[in-house]
């Protein structure tokens, strides 16, 4: 087993991995950018190394700096978390070259699944169903026209190197094809430096369901059940659950076996996720494989009783899977909410800043994986994911009711969060009835929000509370600016940084 693991990440996932290390008796090495010195993952680590400026390219994405820290600290393995370098085959290769174990698949497996067209070719050979269309980049407009005509409109154009909705175009009919192809190509070139675009049939109102797989380095591959991830905003997942309300044991077995076949076709090891689109007839199609731990892995942990990060580490250290497919049993239901620093009342604008008050939920069936704390200033430089709140229940209804209860207990003061969005989702009749598809959330957000007239009693309470807070004055106020923090801190706080910069702009 490893003695020391470097966590090449920040935020809640870095804390998650540090906890797993401590549980396994392994020392945890954190890295941090200049604005992350006060971050929770630095507080919780055994060692912590600065790796440069706030911009990720200067720090968390800088392969050489991270390998330097690995060498200086004597770490024998690197956990990449998700995002940043987690799906970077070059990084995995550099780790291997430096004699440091990369906790994840091999660079070759990442390469095989990294390009969407290459992945489609691989699964095509393995006889896995994927959305009808080309499995190679389009060579010409004529080819696109021919394929689209054959599979039938509407079709999707997608960038081979794509992700996050970029380089993607929905084409309703032949008259749109030419301009859409050009637009998709130029966006793909701009976004990924790779203009390769392929075509596939557009599936209307699909569900996004993914299958967790786990493969050891001795040829054993298992699936751990699916996650329903249809609730997305701007192609970003917002709520995930396990199991999927529409997947029965037979469908789970079929999807699981396909996912294992995909993993084996790629020579896959460690934890990975095979994503599927599922149409309204419950037919499922391979979409892509994510070659890392997913943000939403906790829902699988809760319904299987397993710890995926422990298992990742054990697999990477050469151990065999400690169980077989038959031992994997799904029990109960789990739902995850991604708590973001963003303002639901203002078009989901990001909302960095200082957390002046934090009331965190706990109790039965509630798991909280968080990277924030009261008094911490959320920097503006990274993804706004603050924490994940996960509810478990005997069944889906109980998971929803526990999660709703916990969301009502959750309070983050000083910045805006999307906590109220989850209350809205969880109380929506279609969500309660599990009528989900990838368009669900956009439709919900477009609805004129039912402006329930405010409860007059609640207004009365607010008026009286306002008066009491005014009377109590400063003594009743929360942390606000922690005077000693900036001074004890090794650098100026991000907020004051911005102020200085803004001032410069104004006076020049």
């Amino acid at each position, binding site marked *: 087993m490893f003695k020391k693991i470097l966590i090449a990440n920040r935020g809640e996932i870095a804390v998650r991995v540090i906890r797993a290390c401590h549980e396994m008796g392994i020392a945890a090495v954190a890295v941090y950018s200049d604005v992350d010195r006060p971050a929770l993952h630095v507080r919780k680590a055994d060692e912590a190394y600065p790796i440069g400026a706030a911009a990720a390219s200067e720090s968390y994405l800088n392969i050489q700096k991270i390998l330097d820290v690995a060498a200086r600290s004597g770490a024998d393995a690197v956990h990449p978390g998700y995002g940043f370098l987690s799906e970077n085959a070059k990084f995995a290769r550099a780790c291997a070259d430096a004699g440091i174990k990369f906790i994840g698949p091999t660079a070759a497996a990442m390469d095989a699944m990294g390009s969407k067209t290459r992945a489609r070719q691989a699964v095509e050979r393995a006889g896995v169903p994927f959305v009808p269309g080309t499995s190679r980049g389009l060579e010409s407009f004529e080819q696109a026209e021919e394929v689209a005509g054959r599979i039938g409109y509407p079709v999707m154009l997608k960038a081979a190197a794509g992700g996050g909705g970029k380089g993607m175009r929905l084409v309703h009919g032949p008259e749109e094809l030419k301009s859409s192809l050009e637009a998709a190509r130029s966006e793909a070139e701009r976004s990924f430096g790779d203009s390769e675009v392929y075509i596939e049939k557009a599936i209307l109102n699909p569900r996004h369901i993914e299958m967790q797989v786990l493969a050891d380095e001795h040829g054993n591959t298992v699936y751990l059940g699916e996650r329903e991830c249809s609730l997305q905003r701007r192609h970003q997942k917002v709520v995930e659950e396990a199991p999927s309300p529409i997947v029965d044991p037979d469908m789970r077995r079929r999807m699981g076996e396909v996912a294992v076949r995909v993993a084996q076709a790629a020579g896959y090891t460690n934890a990975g996720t095979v994503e599927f689109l599922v149409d309204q007839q419950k037919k499922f199609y391979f979409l892509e494989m994510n070659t890392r731990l997913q943000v939403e892995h906790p829902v699988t942990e809760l319904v299987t009783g397993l710890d995926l990060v422990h298992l990742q580490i054990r697999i990477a250290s050469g151990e065999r899977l400690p169980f077989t497919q038959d031992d994997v049993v799904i029990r109960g239901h789990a739902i995850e909410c991604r708590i973001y620093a963003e303002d639901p009342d203002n078009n989901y604008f*990001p909302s960095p800043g200082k957390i002046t*008050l934090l009331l965190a939920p706990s109790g039965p069936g509630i798991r909280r994986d968080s990277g924030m704390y009261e008094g911490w200033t959320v920097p503006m430089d990274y993804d706004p994911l603050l924490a994940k709140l996960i509810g478990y229940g005997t069944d889906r209804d109980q998971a929803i009711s526990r999660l709703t209860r916990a969301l*009502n207990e959750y309070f983050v003061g000083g910045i805006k969060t999307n906590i109220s969005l989850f209350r809205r989702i969880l109380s929506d009749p279609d969500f309660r009835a599990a009528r989900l598809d990838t368009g669900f959330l956009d439709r919900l957000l477009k609805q004129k929000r039912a402006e329930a007239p405010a409860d007059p009693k609640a207004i*009365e*309470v*607010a008026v*009286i*509370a306002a008066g009491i807070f005014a009377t109590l004055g400063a003594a009743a106020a*929360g942390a606000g600016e922690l005077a000693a923090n900036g001074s004890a801190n090794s650098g100026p706080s*991000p907020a004051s940084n911005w102020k200085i910069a803004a001032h410069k702009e104004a006076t020049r």
Partner: protein
Amino acid sequence: MTYDITIDGKQYRLDLNRAEGRWSCRLDGREVEVDAVLARPDVLSLRLGNLAYEVKCERVAGDMHLWVGSSRFAAVVRDPRSLRGRVRAVDDQGPRKLTAPMPGKIVRVLVSQGAGVEAGTGVLVVEAMKMQNEIKSPKKGTIQKILVSEGAAVNAGDVLAIVE
């Protein structure tokens, strides 16, 4: 103490007195039985009669918001005997300031000074937390002034441009 408190556009008169650790309270002249404990800074455990509430107070840049359960109310508290806290009239007709809704960086200025805009025309793009956000004109008019340039770091509330 007497306060004029505005919530949701409606004004309430609150008379609040504390003696020997007990509050006495009149809301618009009506007596209300109030029992309050400050559990933590900004967290009040409030009883009106026997109904119990946990009220959280959010203070951002002088604004006070109160959370009652999962409802959030913006409150303006004024002492009618003092000038402090008098609300300035908002002039919808005059020049309007575009402010940064969050700290970030100006990545694009979409219109130039003097240009005409519609309500909803994008004026600038601010980037924060890997997201780009268009700041739109709140009204039809002319861009009187652009106060920032591309690449500038801005703080929440900074004035970015003025439309008139």
